[in-house]
């Protein structure tokens, strides 16, 4: 791999011969040249001898059980090696799951005849070529008895119950009812958001094989170490006998943080058929059989004095969940920390249904949650006849409004003022439906948000080699975030050497425990482990030992001993839209985002990530929506023709930039820019659509049929 990225100046032109610190310097991607010349290898690109291919068969009913599977036509089909279903699949450990949410029924593939959602994998057909596997899968005859399914989500559903509390308790500050009663102006509205998919461009794919006792896997994922650990538990193997690797990952956005069906099924197939087996999910299977962001229904109550001071924030949300897996779509999180108020009350419920398991999709919780809270803030500003920017300026807390803990660094106001300045917010006529260009209605809107940040324990091993180079190994992964390039820079600075003396190894579970590319905390957590190892190594090198010398760090203690404080990233997003009332089309003309995301390792890539995050927010506002058929219970728009997200022509130039920010309790001052870009955008656009048309959109997406006027 070519590891000599170009160093760029402020205008994007290349600078040569620079010896400044690597952190803070814009640099092109380490693997950029490989990616533009087709050489970068993703999980499905790596050749394996004697490879067989698996094709998945998914349930056509949404609830019930399998009564019979007739494989005869499949087994007679050319090239078919075998069929795996619940009768012959290896047994797996029912306790396997995640540290946050406990045992995960979604991992229990092919263990019984029960069907709890449409698209559940019921068999794998393994054949010599992928066409033969697919043809064999089409011939598999599966019979079911169907039971009535329930996919009707509502917060008042009889099965609704409180969500797990692993991400903190409900807020119960002050007396919400009393403060609402004492408020001069009250907003009490409900907001709904649909199920959405991550839609990483690379469908989930895995290859598994056995090398003696060792189970090897190449898998498209966001967490090589975590997934190897899950796989080991699931199949009852010691972790030392499981190794998961990957070089490049074609996006994840949360959908590849857990052990996916592709790797479980490939493992079962290699155990049964003693061949390396690749399972590449089709795009439809990614929609039907991986995971999604849940539907939410959120009631927000705000009460304020005439001057805009908040007395009350109530945020009560429900989200759907499958019967198989727990998850916390923490929509109410930012209500606990973003604004000061005398009373703050949050509730979070789940409604179990016959749906695909729900899991992380970029900015879980905060993406739908900020749509509700920041739309409600706009409604409050409207009822107060006040600039929505001023409303947000007036309610800045000094300490965590619920926790009472100090903030480490809180640059929300700076994001608001910088964003407003760049956008040209001053002088806006706050009344709706005032600006027209021909037949188009023009409006502007804004929203702000925060995003929880921390760091998770990881380990890194650095070896000082005899030739003067340093090998830096960490079970990190770059899913498009730029982590590889950022970690390279962090290592160079931590070891106080030039770029060329670092050799970075990532993407291999065997390196050791490390956090995932998730929670916007991959590079932050891995960077800390590299800094810790570099510090110890440099100390050891002082005595002039014989080389090579290796040091392995473990940041668990350092991270756990940090003081309890409120740690968040912040953003402010400003949008201008043009609405055609005759067609209902909303075009986003401008998007400006200002972000406080801690210290920025590589400005080029962080800008890209924030921009990409904002584009996903634009899609969430206007396009994305899982549509399920009430009769069959299945998702009907399980492809890119039916499930829309932004194409190039939907996206204007976007101004995404960061303000000066620094996390004092992180050795690099980092927070993490991965998800916050997505968060406030839907509310900013919805508020702009109100400003253009006078109509509130409390239901996403803001579809043509919801906008069109007679």
């Amino acid at each position, binding site marked *: 791999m070519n590891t000599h990225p*170009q160093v*760029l100046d402020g205008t*994007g032109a290349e600078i040569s011969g620079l010896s400044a610190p690597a952190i803070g310097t814009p640099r*092109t*991607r380490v*693997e*950029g*040249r490989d*990616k*533009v*010349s*087709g050489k*970068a*290898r*993703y999980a*499905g*690109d790596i050749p394996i001898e004697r490879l067989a291919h698996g094709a998945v068969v998914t349930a056509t009913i949404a609830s019930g059980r399998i009564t019979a599977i007739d494989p005869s036509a499949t087994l007679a*089909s*050319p090239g078919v090696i075998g069929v795996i279903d619940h009768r012959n699949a290896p047994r797996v450990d029912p306790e396997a799951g995640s540290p946050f949410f406990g045992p995960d029924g979604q991992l229990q593939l092919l263990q019984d005849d029960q069907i709890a959602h449409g698209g559940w994998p019921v068999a794998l057909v393994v054949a010599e*070529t*992928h*066409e*033969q596997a697919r*043809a064999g899968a089409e011939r598999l005859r599966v019979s079911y008895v169907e039971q009535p399914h329930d996919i009707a989500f509502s917060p008042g559903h009889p099965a609704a119950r409180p969500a797990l509390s692993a991400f903190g308790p409900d807020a119960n500050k002050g007396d919400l009812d009393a403060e609402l009663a004492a408020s001069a102006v009250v907003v009490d509205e409900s907001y709904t958001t649909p199920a959405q998919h991550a*839609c*990483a*461009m*690379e*469908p989930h794919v895995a290859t598994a094989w056995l090398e003696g006792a060792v189970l090897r896997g190449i898998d498209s994922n966001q967490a090589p170490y975590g997934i190897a650990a899950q796989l080991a538990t699931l199949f009852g193997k010691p972790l030392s006998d499981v190794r998961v690797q990957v070089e*490049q*990952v*074609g*996006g994840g*956005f949360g959908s590849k943080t857990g052990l996916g069906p592709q790797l479980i099924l490939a493992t079962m197939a290699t155990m049964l058929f003693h061949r390396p087996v690749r399972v590449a999910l*089709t*795009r439809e299977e990614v929609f039907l059989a991986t995971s999604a962001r849940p539907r939410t229904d959120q009631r927000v109550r705000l009460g304020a004095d005439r001057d805009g001071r908040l007395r009350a924030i109530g945020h009560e949300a429900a989200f759907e969940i499958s019967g198989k897996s727990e998850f916390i779509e923490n929509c109410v999180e930012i209500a606990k920390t973003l604004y000061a108020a005398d009373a703050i009350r949050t509730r979070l419920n789940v409604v179990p249904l016959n749906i695909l398991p729900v899991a992380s999709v970029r900015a879980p919780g905060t993406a739908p949650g900020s749509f509700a809270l920041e739309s409600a803030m706009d409604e409050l500003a409207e009822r107060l006849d006040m600039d929505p920017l001023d409303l947000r300026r007036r309610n800045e807390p000094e300490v965590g409004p619920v926790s009472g803990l100090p903030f480490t660094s809180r640059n929300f106001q700076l994001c608001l003022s910088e964003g407003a300045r760049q956008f040209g917010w001053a002088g806006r006529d706050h009344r709706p439906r005032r600006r027209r260009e021909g037949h188009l209605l023009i409006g502007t809107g804004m929203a702000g948000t925060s995003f929880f940040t921390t760091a998770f324990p990881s380990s890194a091993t650095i070896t000082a080699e005899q030739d003067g180079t340093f090998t830096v190994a960490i079970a990190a992964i770059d*899913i*498009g*975030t*730029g982590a590889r390039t950022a970690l390279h820079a962090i290592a160079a600075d931590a070891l106080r050497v030039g770029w060329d003396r670092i050799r970075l190894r990532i993407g291999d579970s065997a390196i050791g425990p490390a956090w995932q590319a998730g929670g916007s905390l991959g590079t932050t957590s891995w960077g800390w482990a590299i800094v810790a190892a570099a510090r110890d190594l440099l100390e050891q090198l002082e005595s002039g030992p014989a080389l090579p010398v290796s040091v392995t760090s473990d940041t668990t203690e350092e991270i756990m001993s940090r003081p309890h404080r409120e740690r968040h990233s912040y953003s402010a997003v400003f949008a201008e839209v043009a609405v055609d009332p005759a067609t209902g089309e909303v075009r986003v003309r401008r998007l400006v985002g200002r972000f406080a995301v801690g210290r920025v390792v590589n400005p*080029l*890539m962080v*800008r*890209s*990530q924030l*921009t*990409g*995050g*904002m*584009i996903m927010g634009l899609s969430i506002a206007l396009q994305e929506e899982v549509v399920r058929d009430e009769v069959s219970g299945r998702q009907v728009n399980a*492809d*890119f*023709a039916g499930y829309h*997200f*932004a*194409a*190039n*022509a939907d*996206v204007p*130039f976007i101004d995404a930039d960061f303000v000066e920010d620094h996390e004092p309790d992180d050795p690099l001052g980092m927070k993490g820019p991965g998800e916050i870009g997505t968060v406030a955008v839907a509310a900013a656009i919805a508020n702009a659509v109100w400003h253009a048309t006078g109509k509130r959109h409390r239901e996403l997406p803001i579809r043509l049929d919801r906008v069109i006027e007679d």
Partner: protein
Amino acid sequence: MTNDARSEISLHINGTTHRLTVDNRRTLLDALREDTRHIGSKKGCDFGQCGACTVLVNGRRVVSCLTLAVAAEGAEVITVEGLAVNDELRPVQEAFVRLDGLQCGFCTSGQLCSAVGVLAEHAAGWPSAVTPDLSPDQPHRPLDADEVRERMSGNLCRCGAYPSIVRAVLEAAECEEVNR
């Protein structure tokens, strides 16, 4: 036709001829990826809906997942691996790297093949849906951002690299104008 009918074909890929026996159901995409190890072309949907598999066939962009390998016999196929000349990146590839027109990189091969197609189509005077004046004998207008957005909209990018992709294609277009 039985379900396992095969054909012997020749594929001309990036200037090299490959003789293959393929399952008649084999798509050009799978023939590239599996039979001739051109892994740069990606399968994002296998359905003609994402553009990740875009290659140039006789100079025109096609989605190789909707093209049967047998139908590409005799045609000149250019994949992302064939865009660089003597290991030297084309201006559009170089601009993608420098302007960060990629994140995960999974859509990138398709974007690049598409971009090369767009530049050629525009140079040949082909209009797009946003070209303001379609009357014949219009003077050649340089590409602008709206034209690039429209013409590149068959290539989805979930990472949201679009703004940098537009900049990179515009820069490459300028480069080609100068060279012309």
